[in-house]
């Protein structure tokens, strides 16, 4: 599903590579934690998958397609297969919960009838039925993140990327979010989650890819946050 083939990424003006000769493959349906200190290359790794950056060397494959060879006009279609969740939720403050989720479908031209049917379904999936008319400021952090997950998942993407989704949440709320991501993963969506949260990584015992200074220093199935 996601393959990095000897990928190096060096930003302009930087001497040190953000990612150095990364060779990693993530299969369909896997749940993978991406761990490492700040500046280890986690964000760059995610940006390359989203084609927000291109590798300096090597090739990145998503769903069998090499991203470097993808024409610019085809990139939006590729991104529809990837849902993204962020630490800061990135909800639209002037839109309700329902409107925030519906927005992701409206901007890709889905018909009103589809939106009307699908949005309540996904809100129920994330545990927010009955809260569709609330504004983001009226929700807790955990609820806002559920809205973000609903928006990322509403189009049933093949891949869900979560960049520190529990970074702004308390431990109890974080557990709830992780259960939701796990449930999404069990529905055969590949989940790739960048995180600093050692508790969650240790609890869930999923595959762990650890980055350090742009290098993969560990790739362990059923791993924990630190070395055992």
């Amino acid at each position, binding site marked *: 599903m996601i393959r990095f083939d000897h990928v190096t990424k060096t930003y302009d003006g930087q001497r040190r590579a953000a990612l150095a000769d990364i060779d990693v493959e993530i299969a369909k349906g896997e749940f993978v934690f991406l761990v490492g200190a700040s500046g280890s290359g986690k964000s760059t790794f995610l940006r390359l998958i*989203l084609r927000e950056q291109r590798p300096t060397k090597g090739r990145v494959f998503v769903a069998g397609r090499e991203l470097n060879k993808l024409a*610019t*006009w085809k990139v*939006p*279609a*590729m*991104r*529809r*297969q*990837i*849902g*993204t969740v962020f630490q800061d939720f*990135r909800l*639209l403050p002037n839109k309700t919960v329902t409107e925030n989720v519906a*927005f*992701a479908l*409206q*901007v*890709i*031209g*889905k*018909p*009103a009838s589809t*939106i009307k049917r699908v949005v309540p379904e996904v809100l129920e999936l994330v545990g927010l039925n009955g809260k569709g008319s609330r504004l983001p400021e009226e929700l807790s952090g955990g609820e806002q993140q559920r809205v973000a997950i609903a*928006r990322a998942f509403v*189009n049933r993407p093949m891949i869900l990327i979560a960049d520190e989704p529990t970074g702004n949440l308390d431990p109890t709320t974080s557990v709830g979010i992780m259960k939701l991501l796990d449930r999404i993963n069990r529905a055969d969506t590949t989940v790739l989650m960048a995180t600093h949260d050692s508790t969650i990584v240790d609890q869930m015992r999923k595959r762990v890819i650890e980055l350090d200074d742009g290098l993969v220093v560990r790739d362990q199935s059923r791993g924990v946050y630190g070395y055992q």
Partner: protein
Amino acid sequence: MRFRHILSETRAGLLQNLTMTLGVVMTMWVSLSLFGAGLLANQQVDLMKGRWYDKIEISIFLCTKDTRGDQCEPGQDATPAQKDAIRQTLEANPEVAAGGVYFETKEEAYAEFQRAYEGSPIQDSLTAEQMQESFRVKLKNPEQYQGVVSSVVGLEGVQKVQDLHQVLDPVFSALNLLQWATVGASALLLLASALQIGNTIRLATFARRREIGIMRLVGASNFYITVPFLLEAVISALGGIALACLTLAAGVYFWIIRGTRESIRFVAWIGWQQTGAAMLGIVVVGLILAIIPTLITTRRYLRV
């Protein structure tokens, strides 16, 4: 659904930046009005030049029953023999360009008169029969006209010899000055409008960076992201275009049609046909001015 969503995004954008939108409308109104005035001045010059200005230097008007002149027989048109004599004199003159002698019949003169004075109060004041036949002469050297004039001015059948350039050039100098002044001023203002539109779009993309970021992430097409900004620019431009067209129409109606056309009747003045052509020019330039800066700015700042 897609179209409705685009329209609602456009409407929200226009309202969000209402003062900037109004600023764009007003700048375009002034710049396009000046540009339109330049186009009208250009058309006025063309109208006054008529059919012959660029082709010939001297016009030799022949006698008719109704005209008076030293070489005219009262109550009589110029005779065929007199016309032949005039033609031979002209064609034999070394200062006349090869093939540069044209004869305009009464009917041709009448048709030109109708065209030039269309809509004017004097349009119906003459008949074809009353028009003067004429010889139109092209010189090898336009400055060497005196010899040609003096060779025909005393011939029988010649009512008047006119050096077109001598009569019209002072007027054209003034009109050309007006034309260049309006074009120059409008060019600067049009450039200002283009920059203003670019800045407005840039600010709009910044104000909506959150929505745009999400649109890019969820896979909205580049077209879908750009279209609301294009529509906003076009709608603002249409406001300016409409006001400029109204200004032009009002100016032509009150100043030309109800004003100078009534008081200075011997000149062919622009009318609604020319105004329509100027308006078309305003629409084309206005839309180009809206679309191109928007495409450049969105390409640069939306990272589409």
